[in-house]
């Protein structure tokens, strides 16, 4: 039996799924190793969500403060992740990020400069020293464009606007992927010796999110259904500052860079409420008063950071509390004020526009607010998932041989909470590692034939919605799922509400089987939404089930019924896998052991 002629078949050594920062970096590395590489992007090349990253990429280069180094960065990352991180990954990340930044410069990236002509670094939440290499507030664009423009000359084959719907396997090993192209709706089979997942996040599982339509957890679901394990899925980062008004832009990101440049948070009474609640782990790193906080922003090495630059999980909860207590802004947020720095520096308007140009335009054009003279209204928005495919810390390979993952779709680096700026560096550090090891795997293993029967069965399921005259509207199901996740598995969680969410998810899963699609297969967003829906349901279930079983509050997870951190829960990660009967199995996996050397680094930095 062979594949019908209607399938378009491609053959590569390494197939990279996703073309944001991690995917492109992996593809570049694998190409450099001399293997044949294919890259699949869900959108056009260069439009992936990486483009939205604003503040910068964390790398302990010490250009602005020479006390910085890999050990401080490592300790900051572990502290921010509440020590659930994989220490091996945190070590790779802290040690290798500076070289990855310099490499971007060698490929044409143009970072903002220090006065003596080196790469400038800025302050960010949870980072002890100014550490984020940046380009104004459009660092993600610089990163993706640099990788794209370098990558297209390295010999990789790029498939734009194509979506993978299933990984293919034989003999326990991954041997390719099945997908479709948006333009014509044709089916494609990619044969590959190794596959790198670099599909990004899951934000679209929630109603209020900074993510685009693409953030539907495709890679998480592909890996899960192929037998890989998902870890830390309960940890979803709600970025503290998303836009709240007008309604159509609710959730849109407001960079932490605003706070890094001196922006402060106030409630409706004008109080800087962040001073009211400083966690113990950070008490000796936070400014005593507003004056010291401003000195920190200005670069005074003896000053501590303002409390607005605490970790995102904490800031988001504080904002949420102010809003719930009735001290919010008119449209249900709090106030973020950068305009106030006019009291401190001359020409503050020009300064703000230079440091935060996209924020200036975003507010001006979409909300009619001039941030150089007016306060912004902001509130938490679903931004990032710390959880993802469980991978080996040195190679990024999952428990499925030949299947690798890097970037947001992989778990491990960030633990219970990610520090701002650690994502862009994550992409390039682990994109490179994944590409390198996927290429190695491809060289060491021969190709395995795909099974046409497997492809036929999976394709038939995709085409069913067209056969139905009447049925469910995929947009309506997606919207109901988003409401359930937002309301019941959001910033503040309880057992009862999450059980209700599971009930809704189970119900929606049944209804999703009865989706009907009008029109034909060419560029049909209704059909695409129906397909993405399956991924969102899988991801949502794993978030809710993991969150139910972590009976404590830690990092991004806050349980109203277990409001304290529990030492007994500091020893494991939650892991989901698909059991033999197809149901989701959740278990507790002991944390990987930490080398004595790394333990002593953490102690030293406490």
């Amino acid at each position, binding site marked *: 039996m062979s594949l019908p002629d209607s399938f378009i078949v491609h053959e590569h050594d390494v197939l990279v799924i996703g073309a944001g920062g991690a995917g492109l970096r992996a593809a570049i590395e694998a190409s450099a190793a001399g293997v044949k590489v294919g890259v699949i992007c869900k*959108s056009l090349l260069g439009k992936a969500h990486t483009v939205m990253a604003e503040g910068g990429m964390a790398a302990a280069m010490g250009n602005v403060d020479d006390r910085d180094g890999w050990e401080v960065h490592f300790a900051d990352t572990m502290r921010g992740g509440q020590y659930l991180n994989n220490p091996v990954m945190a070590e790779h990340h802290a040690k290798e990020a500076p070289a990855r930044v310099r490499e971007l410069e*060698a490929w044409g990236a143009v970072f903002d400069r220090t006065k003596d002509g080196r790469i400038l670094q800025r302050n960010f939440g949870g980072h002890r020293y100014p550490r984020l290499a940046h380009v104004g507030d459009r660092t993600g664009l610089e990163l993706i464009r640099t990788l794209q423009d370098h990558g297209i000359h390295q010999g990789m084959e790029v498939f734009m606007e194509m979506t993978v719907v299933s990984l293919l396997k034989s003999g326990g090993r991954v041997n390719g992927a099945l997908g479709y192209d948006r333009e014509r709706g044709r089916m494609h089979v990619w044969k590959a010796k190794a596959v790198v997942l670099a599909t990004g996040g899951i934000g679209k599982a929630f109603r209020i999110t900074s993510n685009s339509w693409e953030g539907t957890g495709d890679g998480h679901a592909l890996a899960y259904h192929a037998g890989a394990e998902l870890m830390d899925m309960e940890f979803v980062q709600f970025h503290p500052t998303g836009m*709240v*008004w007008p309604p159509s832009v609710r959730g849109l990101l407001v960079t932490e860079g605003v706070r890094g440049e001196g922006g402060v948070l106030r409630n409706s009474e004008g109080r800087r409420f962040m001073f009211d609640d400083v966690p113990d782990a950070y008490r000796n790193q936070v400014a005593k008063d507003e004056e010291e906080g401003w000195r920190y922003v200005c670069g005074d090495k003896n000053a501590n950071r303002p409390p607005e630059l605490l970790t995102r999980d904490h800031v988001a909860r504080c904002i949420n509390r102010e809003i719930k207590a009735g001290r919010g802004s008119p*449209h249900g947020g709090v106030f973020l004020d950068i305009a106030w720095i006019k009291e401190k520096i001359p020409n503050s308007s020009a300064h703000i526009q230079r440091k935060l140009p996209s924020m200036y335009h975003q507010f001006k054009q979409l909300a009619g607010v001039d941030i150089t003279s007016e306060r912004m209204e902001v509130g938490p928005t679903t931004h990032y998932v710390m959880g993802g495919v469980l991978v080996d810390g040195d190679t990024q390979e999952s428990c499925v041989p030949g299947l690798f993952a890097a970037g947001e779709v992989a778990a491990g680096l960030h633990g219970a909470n990610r520090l701002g700026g650690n994502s862009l560096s994550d992409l390039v550090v682990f994109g490179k590692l994944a590409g390198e090891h996927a290429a190695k795997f491809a060289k060491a293993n021969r190709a395995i034939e795909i099974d046409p029967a497997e492809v036929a069965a999976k394709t038939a399921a995709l085409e069913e919605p067209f056969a139905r005259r009447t049925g469910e509207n995929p947009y309506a199901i997606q919207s109901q799922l988003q409401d359930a996740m937002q309301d019941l598995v959001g910033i503040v969680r309880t057992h009862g509400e999450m059980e209700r969410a599971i009930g809704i998810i189970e119900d929606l899963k049944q209804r999703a089987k009865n989706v009907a699609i009008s029109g034909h297969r060419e560029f049909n967003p209704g059909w695409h939404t129906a397909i993405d829906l399956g991924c969102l349901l899988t991801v949502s279930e794993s978030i809710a089930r993991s969150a139910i079983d972590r009976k404590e509050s830690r990092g991004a997870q806050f349980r109203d019924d277990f409001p304290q951190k529990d030492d007994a829960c500091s020893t494991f990660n939650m892991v989901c896998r698909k059991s033999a009967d197809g149901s989701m199995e959740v278990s507790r996996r002991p944390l990987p052991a930490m080398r004595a050397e790394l333990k002593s680094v953490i102690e030293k930095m406490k």
Partner: protein
Amino acid sequence: MASPASQNGIHESTRTVEFRVWRGDRSGGAFTSYSVQVTQGMVVLDCIHRIQADQANDLAVRWNCKAGKCGSCSAEINGHPKLMCMTRMDALPADRPVTVEPMRSFPSIRDLVTDVSWNFRMKRRIKPFKPRKPDHADGSWTMMQEDVDRVQELRKCIECFLCQDVCHVLRDHHKHDEFIGPRFLMYTAALEMHPLDTEDRIADLKQENGIGYCNITKCCTKVCPEHIGITDNAIIPMKERVVDEFYDPLTRLFRIFKPR
């Protein structure tokens, strides 16, 4: 689903707006009318999404970030090339229907989606960045901010291709084989002005990339959503370099003796 604002008890005015959206494919198409309930602060892309969710599930449209950062949702709104996500409804005339059609300089795929692959092919044609040797042992260079300001301005480009859409050399004269368009003239300029770059792309600009076709009407600059000075800061300086290299008698003489 109640909107978040109405949950807070804030009244929002709603009005009904008539949309005329181009529906069709490679073989042709026509405008279809839809009525949309528009609330305060909505942008054109919101309306398109509302039509898609309620009235036409299969309406094809490209979009990603919804924040003017990715350059996916380019279209012609009331005849003007714009990003749908950054065009507020209250900035459009209220007394007539809003027309939305795809970029007309590129072949249609379906509805608002066009085939922009030509742009990706043009980019590959341009010689990539080639830096000089690093200044320092750790692989880094010294570059001053004032020396990179201009390059950073040009690198703000989000590749929405609205400048390509509006350029009459492409739109009216279809010189796609001989002219790379403002986006890639600017891309070349950013490489040429990069303080570390050692490659020479001036001859290519003059010959296969057709910079001479641009007659500086500045239409590209006018539609740029990033407000980049495409004409003044990128194309004109490149034209000057072409003139210096190919038409200046002294330079031509010098070129004969210059070691390549």
